[in-house]
């Protein structure tokens, strides 16, 4: 019988010929990703009696969640992490300003086909855009990997999502992700390995594809996989930090669920407060007043996203009384957007551009809402209280809709400006 991506890669990595869903395997990851929570992990590592991390080259540590430090306490966290990284000889350390871990891992050629990435962040499945098996874990689990080099994983069931056809103009991978999450629910992919296939996926660039694994965390998925095709392999030429061997599922692999979607029927979608699966077509929620528009995050803070927003904002002004916050996902995105003139367009329209990082996404700083305010955001999560106060609302949409809504001061389709 054929094997799914998850079965094949976990069999290979655990040194078994074949594994079945439900089996527990012990895996040494190729990449162990952590971020600002590294300070807390250091504490747990020490409680475990750990002194030296297992194989320093395996670790990738990023400062991105609250950067540059908004308070002394955050700064102290960062200081502890820098000191630890130096002591332990961890070379894949990306300090304040480099960008969001999931984006930077890809840019640095550390998210590789056929490799296993375990990260103490729930959006770790993002790295599946390059054909890696990438799953989120807890802090204690990361500390345990530092100590002994491996971790138990349950071999997941697999779900195959096939996308036929092409998007209508103005529809993006974000809309597809929201459509699917709305269709299957916040636990529609619980514990599963979600694979994306079909010509609808092959037609997308990497920036757009990345939205899919990034958002599958919101459907409960363990990991998410996009088959590395010519586009992905070309991107890795001269960038990949190691020699890699891609893993592809067998044609006759057995999936717990297989669903087909027609890209052509999808319209721009919006996730309404306070759940990512509370999804409505844009046309149903257009006209909802907003106070703030936020463009950024690991979901939609890439060059193509800033470009989409700049196209909408060219020659326009953000509505009086509305503010727009833009945070490029990485320093490379920032530089490329500067060169392309997008940053100037965004600033001229009245947007605020801040340094790369997670910003207000989980309520840390750089544009948290006031009580009673409404934000439209390009992020992946709109839970109550997410951006700092539970008395505020978050709508999730694609970057062009976020920009158009900033101009109108209400949720708006770009074509209606």
């Amino acid at each position, binding site marked *: 019988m054929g094997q799914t991506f998850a079965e094949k890669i976990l069999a290979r990595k655990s040194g078994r010929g074949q594994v079945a869903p439900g089996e527990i395997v012990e895996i040494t990851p190729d990449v162990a990703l952590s971020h600002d929570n590294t300070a807390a992990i250091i504490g747990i590592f020490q409680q475990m009696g750990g002194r030296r991390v297992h194989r320093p080259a395996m670790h990738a540590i990023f400062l991105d969640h*609250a950067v540059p430090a908004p308070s002394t306490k955050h700064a102290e966290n960062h200081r502890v992490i820098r000191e630890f990284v130096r002591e332990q000889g961890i070379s894949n350390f990306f300090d304040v300003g480099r960008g969001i871990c999931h984006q930077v891992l890809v840019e640095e050629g550390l998210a590789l086909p056929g490799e296993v990435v375990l990260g103490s962040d729930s959006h770790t499945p993002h790295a599946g855009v390059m054909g890696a098996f990438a799953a989120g874990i807890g802090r204690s*689990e990361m500390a345990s990997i530092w100590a*002994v080099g491996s971790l138990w994983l349950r071999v997941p069931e697999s779900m195959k999502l096939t996308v036929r056809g092409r998007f209508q103009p103005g529809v993006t991978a974000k809309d597809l992700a929201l459509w699917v999450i709305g269709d299957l629910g916040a*636990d529609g992919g619980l514990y599963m390995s979600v694979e994306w296939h079909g010509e609808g996926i092959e037609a997308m660039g990497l920036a757009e594809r990345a939205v899919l694994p990034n958002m599958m965390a919101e459907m409960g998925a363990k990991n998410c996989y996009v088959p590395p095709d010519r586009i992905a392999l070309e991107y890795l030429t001269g960038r990949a930090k190691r020699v890699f061997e891609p893993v592809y599922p067998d044609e006759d692999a057995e999936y717990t669920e297989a669903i087909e979607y027609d890209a052509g029927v999808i319209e721009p979608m919006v996730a309404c407060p306070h759940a990512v699966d509370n999804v409505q077509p844009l046309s149903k929620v257009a006209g909802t007043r907003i106070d703030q528009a936020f463009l950024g995050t690991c979901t939609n803070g890439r060059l193509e996203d800033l470009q989409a927003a700049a196209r909408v904002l060219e020659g326009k002004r953000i509505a009086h009384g509305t503010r727009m916050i833009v945070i490029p996902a990485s320093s490379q995105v920032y530089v490329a957007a500067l060169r392309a003139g997008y940053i100037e367009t965004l600033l001229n329209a009245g947007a605020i551009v801040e340094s790369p990082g997670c910003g207000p996404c989980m309520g840390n700083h750089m544009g948290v809402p006031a009580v009673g305010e409404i934000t439209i955001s390009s992020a992946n999560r709109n839970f109550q209280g997410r951006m700092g106060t539970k008395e505020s609302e978050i709508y999730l949409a694609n970057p062009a809709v976020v920009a158009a809504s900033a101009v109108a001061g209400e949720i708006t389709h770009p074509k209606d400006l």
Partner: protein
Amino acid sequence: MKLIRGRVWKYGDNVNTDVIFPGKYTYTISDPTEMPQHALEDLDPRFVKGVRPNDIIVAGRNWGCGSSREQAVTCLKETRVGAILARSFARIYYRNCLNAALPALTCNEAVDAIVDGETVEIDLEGGTIRCARGEFPFPALPPAVMAIFDAGGLVAYTRRRLEAGDRGGQA
């Protein structure tokens, strides 16, 4: 503790980690003893005031979805919640529970039968939940995972492995 007896706090589906332990505290509160005062802060303000040791959380589908933050488990562990029973758990939350040796059990029939505020009894070894409306079995944990649970959690488990000179992964 093999027999857990406590009052039930019953909640619905898709309760996320942002309402269990708000994200704004994740980098400012690192002392576990400070975490209980924020447990379920944005879900149920009555909880912190009323919770007693061994109380049991009973929930619907996908309890603990969202962020991987371990504090969403630690804050309940520190509150001395006895167990969490749900229709299903978000996967990282579930792992975090087992790694903290906080019993995370699934049993749809028991979730249906149990009412908010009643006192129920969970027999971890026997694999049964007893409530006013009957007795329900729940599936045992896989042996590989039970070892972590039996050690008292992942920290203790890994400490033992290190002390025994175990370098699980290939160098």
